[in-house]
């Protein structure tokens, strides 16, 4: 195979791998924005929280409890950590965000920004800023797969497949089921949905929990790939915002598709002009703003 093509394919795979996180996070952001009209700045921090919970469950919980042999591994963490993040998210919604719904949405943006700083600060203090490797990758996912054009770690392949399933599962639930119908109706006209006897505040809280849970899940998936670091979400969230501006926040599928594609584009940019890979998503955002300000999947107006 031509080395150039090989490199493009390989960087494309890595890009897709990053796209997983763009997709999952912008998906969660879109779910939350769709129902609450809240832009959750803390989404990146909750992703970080998910990764840290996985780390803590594996490395720190045992020593804290005085049982040194206790390591809660990757698989249980994949369930537990997102649930814990979701619970934390619901607390935020219930006790903080809920007071701001009647105000300009910039206040909820600022509130979640504050939460981001607090979470980051706390984790920088207890772990250091540079990141800790996650040691709990399951043996079954260790090793590499030969894709023909590159050796690709099994684990990363698992992450790609798993997250595609999660994203489309979420899309299916929201767009194609009874629950989804209620959520969509709640977005359109919460007052009326309430009058039909549906507990909209509860639904809102659960949805926020779900969206943040997705962030937590992405965090757990990220832990074995990247070092677990307090700042891992901070830089990501800005990229996610650009993804969301490009895709438009109105659509679930739009968020997912935009996320994966931008990961891919970013990866391939590395082949041709590596210094631009940091900015390519932002530059695309500029182009989209000029050509189609409402975003690729956004509704007009």
């Amino acid at each position, binding site marked *: 195979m031509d080395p150039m093509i090989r490199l493009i394919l390989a960087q494309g795979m890595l890009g897709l791998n990053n796209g997983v996180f763009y997709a999952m996070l912008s998906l969660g952001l879109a779910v939350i924005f769709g129902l609450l009209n809240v832009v959750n700045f803390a989404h990146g921090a909750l992703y970080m929280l998910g990764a840290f919970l996985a780390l803590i469950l594996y490395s720190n919980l045992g020593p804290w409890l005085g049982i040194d042999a206790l390591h809660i591994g990757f698989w249980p963490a994949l369930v537990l950590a997102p649930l814990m993040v979701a619970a934390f998210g619901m607390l935020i919604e219930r006790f903080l965000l809920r007071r701001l719904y009647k105000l300009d949405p910039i206040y909820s943006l600022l509130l979640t920004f504050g939460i981001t*700083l607090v979470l980051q600060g706390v984790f920088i*203090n207890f772990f250091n800023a540079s990141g800790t490797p996650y040691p709990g990758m399951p043996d079954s996912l260790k090793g590499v797969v030969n894709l023909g054009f590159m050796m690709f770690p099994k684990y990363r392949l698992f992450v790609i497949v798993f997250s595609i399933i999660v994203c489309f599962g979420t899309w299916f639930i929201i767009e194609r089921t009874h629950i989804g119908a209620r959520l969509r109706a709640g977005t359109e006209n919460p007052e009326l949905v309430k009058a039909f006897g549906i507990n909209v505040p509860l639904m809102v809280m659960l949805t926020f929990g779900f969206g943040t849970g997705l962030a937590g899940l992405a965090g757990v998936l990220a832990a074995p790939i990247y070092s677990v670091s307090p700042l891992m979400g901070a830089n990501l969230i800005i990229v996610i915002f650009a993804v969301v501006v490009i895709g438009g926040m109105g659509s679930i599928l739009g968020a997912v598709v935009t996320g994966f594609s931008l990961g891919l584009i970013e990866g391939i940019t590395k082949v041709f002009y590596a210094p631009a890979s*940091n900015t390519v998503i932002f530059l695309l955002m500029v182009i989209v703003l000029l050509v189609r300000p409402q975003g690729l999947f956004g509704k007009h107006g």
Partner: protein
Amino acid sequence: MQGLAWAVLLAAVLIAPAFLYPVFAMQLLCFALFAAAFNLLIGFTGLLSFGHAAFFGGAAYIAGHVIKVWGFPPILGILAGTVFAAALGWLVGMLAIRRQGIYFAMITLALAQIVYFFALQMPFTGGEDGLQGIPRGHLLGVIDLSQPLNMYYFVAAVFLIGFAVIYRVVHSPFGQVLQAIRENEPRALSLGYNVDRFKLLAFVLSAGLAGLAGSTKALVFQFASLTDAHWQMSGEVILMTLLGGMGTIFGPVVGAVIVVALQHMLSGIGSWVQVVIGGTFIACVLLFRRGIVGEIARMLKVGGWL
């Protein structure tokens, strides 16, 4: 009331070096000007920019480069930084104004990130190293700015001029229209005001003044660095303004002083500073959205803006 506030401010600025470490006092002034410039946008136009660090930090690099490498005198360097920030503001504003509300905030944040990456990768900025050793030089060729007091009064003058400009903008026919736009945008439009152009001009002014603050800071610390262009800086200036009182004249100054002093006092506790800052944010949003000066103005029932 406003006269009194002006007098207090002026007195405080003049005697500060007697009580404060001059570099710290200069830092306060730079951030106060930055926050006041930012407030021009959020407080008086209703636009939340989450990317003001780009103007602050970008101007610092330009001023630093112009002074250090091209050997320009300090005033011209500061001017260059300011003009650059205003031009950058025009570009960013043009794009961001295409979307409203929360999107506006996200777009400014993302655009500022482009500036950040430029600062990281352009050779002249020194990347992570920053632009170091910017000479303070001589003011008008005579006053030696490496003397702390000289430098202080120079910075104080820049601050007062910048602040007066902001005051004037707010209390100008233009400011009147801005306020109308903030209060009821569709109505302003129906009265025939080209709302987008007013917003853009406000954005440019705010960016330029933020650049003035950034350039001055570069000269004070003899340093332009990524910190100044980082999104966290954008967040800090929002906090200063929110804490002091959005849409008040003196609020951002008060907010900036508190935040900078807080960071200074708490520098011993490491990253807990971030927790404190974040907590302050949450408290402001939940408990006193009017900010300190806003609350005082309400309690004293002073008409107009303090």
